[in-house]
């Protein structure tokens, strides 16, 4: 069995290409069934977000699996392979597992440490599971990946701090106000960036917005979007008395908010006043920061916070990478022991068949046995079988994670003569797969059972 991931993301493909490879949620179940019915593919999960499209598969042969996964993409989206071949990445086995762990931890995202991807991968896995597109390997792999993703977000600060200037202002505001409810935002100037910052505060719970602008019409237009009040720039002093957070982004050449303008508004004030100056040239005189209860942050200060947060995320990412390496190793070990399971099952079935035959013979030769005596005999013969098998099973599990794994498994099959049982199992699996076959019709796929 091999694990394979074929995909493209924001690093390898531009949005023009990525948007052509988007699976809509409604067609995902069909796509999963089609993928699963491809030759060599045994399990499959499709992760489709705005920044990535990845197909994870378990296949019995690497090259065949890769070929048919690409063929699936080509036929499903009706895009010739030459158009996207160069933008695809293919990772196999350990690398594929490692990649999935990076993805769920948010290390492969556009904004490092973002949490959304974890939910998207989880949803992709659950969809595939519902469609019976996953089996033993992916059920275990994706559960391990999701657990790792959750651990990353709860035990590190990788996704906790703002990485945009406007959101950094909100984060900073939380150090002054425990809640933005009933706080008044004063937006001075109707610039785009100022409005975006006000929007973040509004989303964080601020209820009252006052918009000041040179032209009242523009102020009214912006205020309407926040159900706020519009005032003209002459009413700045009055507005300052009501404000808790001031976002300034006018095109003025000189500071419009100075100590002398601000001081009357601060009289009898008991709560902090947060001033955010995102205008260049600056709207607020830096000297106001010296006033008690006034905190002035300009665009550079906010960018400094963003940079600090990004470097913190990077620092946390190093910790996460070490966890990923350990988790990958743990999964590989599990995968290696997985090969033993069919052998153990075959051995146990064979031994139990022998035990059942023996019981049948005993019952024929001793017809006067009571039900109780038969139960006791059955129990003890089973006990002999289990005791005899215990040590070989433990040993083969140990050997399966060593470098001589293949030879050991081969020898195990020969010693216990399990060839026939294994062949029977393979035939049963092949028959089950053949039950549903796919037919390609005009690029899209229809199923026939």
């Amino acid at each position, binding site marked *: 069995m091999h694990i394979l991931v074929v995909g493209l993301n924001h690093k390898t493909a531009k949005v023009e290409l990525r948007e052509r490879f988007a699976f809509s949620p409604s067609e995902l179940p069909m796509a999963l069934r089609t993928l699963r019915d491809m030759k060599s593919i045994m399990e499959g999960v499709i992760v489709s977000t705005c920044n990535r499209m990845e197909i994870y598969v378990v296949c019995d042969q690497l090259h065949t699996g890769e070929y048919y996964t690409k063929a699936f993409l080509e036929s499903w989206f009706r895009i010739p392979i030459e158009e996207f071949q160069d933008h695809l990445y293919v990772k196999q086995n350990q690398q594929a597992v490692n990649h999935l762990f990076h993805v769920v931890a948010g290390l492969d995202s556009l904004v490092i440490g973002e949490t959304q991807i974890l939910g998207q991968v989880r949803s992709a896995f659950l969809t595939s599971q519902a469609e019976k597109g996953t089996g033993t390997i992916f059920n275990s792999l994706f559960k391990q990946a999701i657990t790792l993703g959750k651990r990353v977000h*709860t*035990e*590190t*600060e990788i996704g906790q*701090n703002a990485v945009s200037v406007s959101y950094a202002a909100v984060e*900073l505001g*939380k*150090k*002054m*106000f*425990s809640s933005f409810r009933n706080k008044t935002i004063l937006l001075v100037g109707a610039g785009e960036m100022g409005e975006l910052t006000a929007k973040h505060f509004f989303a964080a719970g601020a209820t009252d917005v006052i918009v000041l602008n040179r032209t009242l019409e523009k102020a009214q237009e912006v205020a309407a979007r926040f159900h706020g009040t519009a005032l003209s720039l002459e009413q700045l002093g009055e507005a300052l008395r009501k404000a808790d957070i001031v976002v300034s982004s006018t095109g003025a050449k000189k500071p419009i908010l100075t100590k002398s303008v601000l001081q009357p508004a601060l009289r*009898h004030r*008991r*709560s*902090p006043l947060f001033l955010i100056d995102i205008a260049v040239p600056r709207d607020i005189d830096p000297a106001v*920061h010296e006033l*008690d*209860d006034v*905190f002035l*942050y300009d665009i550079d*200060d906010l960018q*400094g*916070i963003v940079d*600090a947060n990004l470097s913190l995320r990077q620092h946390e990412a190093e910790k996460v990478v070490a966890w990923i390496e350990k988790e990958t190793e743990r999964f590989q070990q599990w995968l290696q022991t997985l090969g033993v399971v069919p052998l153990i099952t075959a051995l146990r079935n064979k031994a139990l068949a022998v035990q059942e035959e023996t019981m049948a013979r005993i019952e024929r030769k001793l017809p006067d046995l009571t039900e109780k005596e038969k139960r006791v005999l059955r129990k003890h013969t089973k006990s002999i079988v289990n005791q005899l098998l215990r040590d070989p099973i433990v040993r083969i599990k140990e050997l399966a994670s060593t470098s001589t794994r293949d030879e050991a498994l081969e020898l195990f099959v020969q010693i216990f003569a399990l060839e026939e049982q294994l062949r029977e199992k393979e035939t049963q699996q092949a028959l089950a797969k053949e039950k549903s076959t796919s037919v390609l019709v005009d690029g899209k796929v229809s199923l026939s059972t």
Partner: protein
Amino acid sequence: MFVERWFYDFLIYLYALSLLMSFSDLLYPNVRSRRLSMGLLIAVWIIQSTSFIVGLFSFWTITSPLDARFIFSWTLVTFTLVMHGWYRRIDLLIFCANVMGFVILVFHVFTISNMSYESAQMLLTELGFVHISLSILSYAAFSLSSICSSLYLLNNYLLKKKKWNRLLRRLPSLDRLQVFSRNLLLVGIPLFFIAMLLGFMWIYQLMGYLFWNDLKILFSIFVFLFYGFILTQWVRNRWHVRRIAWWNSLAILTIFLNMFVSGLPVSFHYWF
């Protein structure tokens, strides 16, 4: 005595471990350390409370240094657990309050002095019990209020210096710290006032006017006036919050001084 010693040692180890986990979480945020620290703190509280209840129904009176400081520490733990249940992002405040609770616990465990049975009986009146309980509660409220003010100053300093670091991220917001410290004063001052009045009545019954010779009484009046002055400034709205926070942070020294005076031979307040 051996069992008692073992019990207090065990309590201190648990409390220390809780603080250690809490400190580790402050330095390197980790949900496991945070949960473990809170779990251990709850265990400390349960043990303290059990001991408190068992004592209450047997021979316990708040008349030895051991008991009074023990309850002071218990009150701080209770306050912090309640605050933790109600508010988020106050880890640093909880840590500071618990450092204080721990220091008080350690201090009294290692300075156990046994009061004679007669002395204990003398103080064993309902009036005395209420006086001491209310004093302890008001001290806990004052201490927490001072801690909140100190954290307010720290937060204010970091915001003014534009130092965006892990410490700032762990601090509660300015307005929350301000509300906490003011409300704790609002709770502490009336409690302390009632405790003082009851104390006067109680000790007057025992000693008559001689009680004025006790330095502790003068210091308690000083503590009351100091905190009362701070609250007045708050209500009058003339001082900036930062100035009030400075005064409130320093006010904790009056409590320490008051505790120190209790240990002097000129005081009959040898239970605290």
